[in-house]
């Protein structure tokens, strides 16, 4: 399906990451925003509200982030593509309904503009400290899809991608950005509507009294209907059968919850997107996502100039994690260098998927500026000098 031209601001613009995200949402067909104000995500909401009347979108500012995501889920069941935008403190409050969204298999997009934490932290300082929370923050077993943009253009592109994935897999999708990318202003090219591919909601089309809200189709995803279309369906956050009725036994727990995991795991090859540069002959590969990818690519070029064969693996999809590809590359390289604006989150996955075949050097990144490459270059030098594989993540040390 092609994008509805009503939401597509075709042309070349200079936009902040946040404004590009709002435009991406409109282009993707998002017509409902639930919000609770928080720095550094505010400009997404402001742009959305400003343009909502002409696009024909609706919004509501709720009383907290708990209610925001509840409202977004309710809105999604009316057939409107729905999203919310927040930052760490809000994401924490959303964990309850992230779980409900997973259990009710409700498409929606959660944009998290990460800021330094814990607690209130430093609202304006970029960070990547919520990556594991997005993956594991709600209780129980589930898989999640999370994307990470590194520029305003990617904020636009990946917001659309997030909506498409959420409809395809009937799952909440997290767009994990940060204060740096959100406030960066760059050129953003918005294509004509007919060039934007949109994943339509997968609806049930059968008899009204035969609808089963959780009966999986061939693609593993149950079909949806809208509130008000006369199906009189029921859904529950309790463990349920195909009818959406609660069933409290072991067998149904498996029947219900395993597919929540496998509907993602069985399709990782379709879902996962990475961008590789110069990995072919690389001795060292920088694995990065979001804002740190900008420094990673620069560091790669600088290292290549000084004669070190460095490549880059940029994660577009952080969750599910591209474990197969990382495992393959681990056998070929001496080391992975992983910059993150946190104290080590995605690096744990890199280490796990290396299976001891490559050194993993973690670079806590951003203190000297997000695009500064000094620490990365030192870590790369350290990586090529190491003559054996350590069994632990090597913490990059400024003194070395």
């Amino acid at each position, binding site marked *: 399906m092609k994008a509805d031209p009503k939401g597509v601001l075709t042309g070349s613009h200079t936009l902040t990451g946040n404004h590009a995200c709002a435009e991406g949402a409109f282009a993707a067909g998002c017509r409902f925003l639930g919000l609770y104000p928080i720095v550094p995500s505010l400009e997404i909401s402001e742009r959305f509200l400003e343009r909502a009347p002409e696009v024909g979108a609706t919004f509501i500012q*709720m009383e907290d982030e708990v*209610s925001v995501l509840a409202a977004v889920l*309710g809105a999604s069941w009316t057939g409107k593509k729905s999203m919310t935008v927040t930052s760490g403190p809000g994401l924490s409050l959303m964990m309850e309904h992230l779980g409900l969204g997973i259990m009710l298999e409700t498409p929606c997009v959660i944009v998290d503009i990460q800021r330094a934490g814990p607690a209130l932290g430093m609202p304006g300082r970029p960070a990547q400290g919520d990556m594991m929370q997005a993956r594991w923050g709600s209780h129980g077993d589930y898989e999640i899809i999370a994307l990470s943009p590194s520029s305003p253009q990617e904020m636009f592109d990946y917001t659309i991608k997030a909506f498409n994935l959420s409809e395809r897999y009937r799952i909440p999708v997290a767009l994990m950005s940060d204060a740096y990318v959100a406030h960066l202003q760059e050129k953003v090219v918005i294509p004509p509507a007919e060039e934007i591919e949109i994943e339509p909601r997968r609806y049930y089309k059968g008899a009204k009294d035969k609808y089963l809200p959780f009966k999986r189709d061939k693609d593993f995803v149950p079909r949806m209907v809208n*509130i008000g279309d006369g199906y009189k369906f029921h859904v529950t956050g309790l463990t349920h059968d195909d009818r959406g009725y609660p069933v409290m036994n072991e*067998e149904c727990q498996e029947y219900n919850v395993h597919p929540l995991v496998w509907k993602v795991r069985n399709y990782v090859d379709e879902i996962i997107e990475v961008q590789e540069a110069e990995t072919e002959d690389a001795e060292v590969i920088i694995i990065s996502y979001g804002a740190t990818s900008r420094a990673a690519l620069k560091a790669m070029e600088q290292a290549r100039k000084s004669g070190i064969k460095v490549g880059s693996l940029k994660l577009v999809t952080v969750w599910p994690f591209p474990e197969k590809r990382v495992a393959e590359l681990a056998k070929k390289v001496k080391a992975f260098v992983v910059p993150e604006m946190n104290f080590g989150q995605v690096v744990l996955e890199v280490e796990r998927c290396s299976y001891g075949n490559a050194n993993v050097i973690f670079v806590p990144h951003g203190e000297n500026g997000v695009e500064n490459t000094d620490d990365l270059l030192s870590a790369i030098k350290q990586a090529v000098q190491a003559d054996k594989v350590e069994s632990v993540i090597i913490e990059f040390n400024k003194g070395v």
Partner: protein
Amino acid sequence: MKAKETKTQEIQSVPSKKGEIHPMENLLRMDRMPHIWCPSCGIGLAVTAFASALEKANIDPNKISIVSGIGCTGRVAGYVKLDSFHTTHGRPIAFGTGIRVANPKIKVVVFSGDGDLIAIGGNHFIHAARRNIDMLVVCVNNFIYAMTGGQVAPTTPLAAYATTSPYGCVEPPFNIPYIADSSGAVYVARWTTLHIRRLINSLAEALQKKGFSVVEVISPCGMYYSRINKLGDGLDMMKFYHDNVEIRHGEDTKNLDIGFQTKIICGKFVDRERPSYMERYNQWLSDVKGGSRDEG
């Protein structure tokens, strides 16, 4: 992962001989009976009253959605044959707000317990009332957290026993109509499950109201409230309501506190007009745009 046959069964209607159809079959999920509620519980009466009110108010069952939170009353959404959602503890009003704002053609009913709506969901309750979201909230008040086995609720009367107030409740309870009224609800009533006819009338009236309406339904909980407080069974509770309810329409909601085994004042206390959220939203929209969204 292979789908197991038992779970993919087709929706079945309970077989009924000709002429023996349950009068509310078209509004209840008969394939889910028997329900989970204990003998002497009043929630079933509240559901029956609601189903009658739907018919009385002539509401199109295809254009109404019912949302419940968690608790014994939270199970109501699962037994009513409408687009129905069993959500999270305390959040049905927030969930329903999303439905209503995203599609103003849908009438939203929230059916939940006092703990769900007034304790963990208290903030959503007052804000939905303030916004005047078009929504009917049916709050079944059994003075206790029943689903979890009888803990103190925000409505437990002072000195009443609960498993978490073994020496008697030391917290004063909320007066639900007073919160609803002072937060901006346009329709506020209270009945007990003994007052079925009046309850049906109130629910039907509230269903037709534009804006945030609250109907509190005082209900016996024989299993967890009456037993620990030695108040007898469901019938004794009904008898208590019969002897101790005073109907005072229009009573100032300040005066509606309920003590331990004290008089319970019932009636319709608030019935007023105030622009609803969607009315104000549409006004704003036509001011900025000269266009308007669908009226709900």
